[in-house]
């Protein structure tokens, strides 16, 4: 039976190999912080980390997740004090908040591979994460803040 490691816990997965990770997380593990927005990988609301890299959980199947370390927003930090989470609160980024878990996971993944991204790199990394409330200006600022810039 394949094992999927979610937020540090090993889970035996016996279901449909094609089930998107998104629905496994939400409907079976009740990790509802990861959101369904489009189902086709174009909005980023479902972003999680697969072995530390931001991926769309709506396009990642359970079989692709097998043997991998999955981190969701619930597991990004133990105390909710990841630098990205702190920056998000500092700048009061969210409006409705629905897309923000995905945005935060995307930003955390960016900063993990690039501690000091340029504005262009921030735009490139974050442009697949949609926000209908239009928080982009603050998202950009918060990524910069989390990176240690102003």
């Amino acid at each position, binding site marked *: 039976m394949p094992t999927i490691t979610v937020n540090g816990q090993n889970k035996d997965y016996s*279901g*449909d190999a094609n*089930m*998107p990770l998104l*629905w*496994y997380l*939400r*409907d*079976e593990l*009740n*990790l*509802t*912080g*990861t*959101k*369904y*927005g*489009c*189902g*086709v990988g*174009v*909005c980023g*609301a479902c972003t999680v980390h697969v072995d530390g890299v931001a991926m769309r959980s709506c396009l990642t199947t359970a079989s692709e997740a097998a043997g991998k370390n999955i981190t*969701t*927003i*619930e597991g*990004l930090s133990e105390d*909710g004090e990841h630098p990205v*989470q702190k920056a*998000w*609160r500092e700048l*009061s980024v*969210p*409006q*409705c*908040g*629905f*897309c*923000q*878990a995905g945005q*935060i996971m995307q930003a955390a993944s960016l900063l993990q591979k690039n501690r000091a991204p340029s504005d262009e790199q*921030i*735009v*490139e990394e*974050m*442009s*697949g*994460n*949609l*926000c*209908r*409330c*239009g*928080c*982009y*200006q*603050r*998202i*950009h600022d918060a990524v910069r803040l989390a990176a240690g810039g102003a």
Partner: protein
Amino acid sequence: MLHYLQNLEVKTTREIAIENVSRRGMLGGLLAGTAFVLAFRVGPAEAREPLKPYPTGADGMPHKTVADPNVFISIDADGAVTIVTHRAEMGTGIRTSLPMVIADEMEADWSRVKLVQAQGDEPKYGNQDTDGSRSMRHFIQPMRQCGAAMRTMLEAAAAAKWGVDPSLVRAKNHEVILLDKNKKATGKALGFGELAEAAKALPVPAQETLLYKTPDEFTLMRKGEAKIADLRDITTGKAVYGADIRLPGMKYAVMARPPVLGGKMTKYDAAATLKTVGVEAVHEIEGVYKNPRGFAILGGIAVVANSTYAAITGKDALKIEWDHGANASYDSVVYDKEMTATAAEPGKVIRNQGDPDAAFKNASQVFSADYHAAHMAPAAMEPLVAIARVADGKAEVWAPIQSPYGARKDLAEALKMPIENVTVHVTLLGGGFGRKSKWDFMVEAALLAQKVGAPVLLQWTREDDMRNCFYHTVSVERIEAAIDDKGKVTGWRHRSVAPSIISTFKEDDGYSFPIEYGMGFVNTPFDVPNVRCENGKAMAHTRIGWFRSVSSIPHTFAVQSAVTEIAHQLGRDPKDFLLELIGPDRKLDIKALGFPEDFWNYGDPYESFPIDTSRLKNVIRIAAEKAGWGKKMPEKHGLGIAAHCAWSSYVATVVHAKIDADGVMRVPEVTTAIDCGFYVNPERIRSQLEGAAVMGMSNAVYSGITFKGGAVEQSNFTDYLIPSMSNYPQKVNVHIIDAPAGTHSGGVGEPAVAPFCAALANAVFAASKKRLRSMPMGEKVA
């Protein structure tokens, strides 16, 4: 405490000169005067003042307002204050901002305040329809009243305990302090928790006896320092939206609905669906085919499963044949041509002032242009979803709903239950924008749960959400201006052609209704002697609904684009010309200007919220000045301006557009000024206006819904585009006018969306000499 008392000592030295005037006397003597009356401070400097209530449109809303402190506030013996927040949170921050009003007015310590989201219960809380930019506009007064009444009761309870006159006590920062006869603090204090029980037993003081905090004593209002209540939960994934409730035994479901409005299923085959792993059942949900439809459900086939994935997979395997019905001929290309032809002919006259025909006959030049706008879908990031449990003659529904009480009433009717047996829980909304005012998705979930006999989470897929919406109208607006030999506009003709929202609620006659006329059509505040507003007939072939900024989107796009176009035709500066067109400072005399008898002023009484041109001109001047209007712009860069008075607020926006080498328009900077009267939470006003620019750009550039064969052609964010970080208004500077005390609170959520589109089109013209008159314009400037 010591620190506080030291401060108090200092403050008492700045008492105001007039003494020996009792506050009670002032109340009687000055109540008839202006709305806000400054009380003379006879005690410590935490001055309090009576407020004269002013009428708002809340009186015309179902269940109006409730201002009972015991409904909204409870205080535990340990001092914890619980405030009920009765409006829906969809990103405006209102779930935080209205309780802040109460907490500030009652002198509660915000860190000791808990919020509880109200269920749908308007008889108890007053109106809960969270739309129309109404929450602050309608509830600032009752919420301040609740807070002031609770503070007064706490003070009275403390005075009784100490056996002193109430004038010798004062609530401050979660306790009531005892004063000596010189109104100096004695050092004695009772916490709110110690006073809670006694205060609750007291009669609620009448509004006219209450004294309110003066603005210089506010701790939360107008500061913008308190964070939104859900911020931490949002950033840690704990915030609960519509799909995040988990009930024991809950099933997951999706539905296939008719692709064309009014279509009926003729036959279906669910054999493959029922073989799908995880699918448990298939249920036919009968649609409602009455006209007008209201929020009636569309009907279709529901697939019930043990996961959302299984339900979606099962739905994809359904084979359904439809009779598409009468709307199958709806074709957006054809319809636009029909509307354009209609706009070329005289329509039904909605407003007439002077003699526009003579003005056009005598004109030395005329201006004329058509402005087109496509249907739009609110497309909140959270697709529609509802969770229902129906058992033992009772129903509970959890949903991201803007109108929980209207939903509750219809749920009761659909389930044939008394309303007392139906509970509607309001989750956080992952965006609303008007679509989540319509509760069809909740009724579907409840009917399905009833059939299934278990709790059901009914998820709309993104495609369902995109294709079964209540769409923002589609429109052609024709603007004509007559100009005399001195370059003065002497005649203004505006023809609006757009299927109406009212077609959803009454038999469609093809014409708009006062709420649409009132959004920047009949109330264009120009100083032009001859004006005619006409409405051309346009029948609806889909469900037309309200979307953030509603008819202001097409009206303002047309009017404010035309103003700049006319300015260019006359060789004038667009900002100066706009100010000149608005004319002298005045409150519009709407009778003299030929406004219709049924003129709709955003639901507010005109005497409370008159259209004041001085406020409109002020925001225009400030936005222009802050944006550096008139400065020399680089090649392929330009500034555009537009303004709008709407939802009892005034907004002006200057957009800086540039055209890149690849022909793509970009928006490096936006400057918006808003006068929304007495404002409460400037930080959330800024976030709303930043977002309004992004949604404005979405409407103007990217997002259009089109129909072919009666069905929506778009399906997801792959073909219904919205701005992303790769192209959005990058820096939005917001200037909030510090309106004089006593200026009534206006709306914030919607007003700034509308002017963005025209300001952008005007900026693109300034940058490229290309005039874009059709939304969505596309990001490439050809």
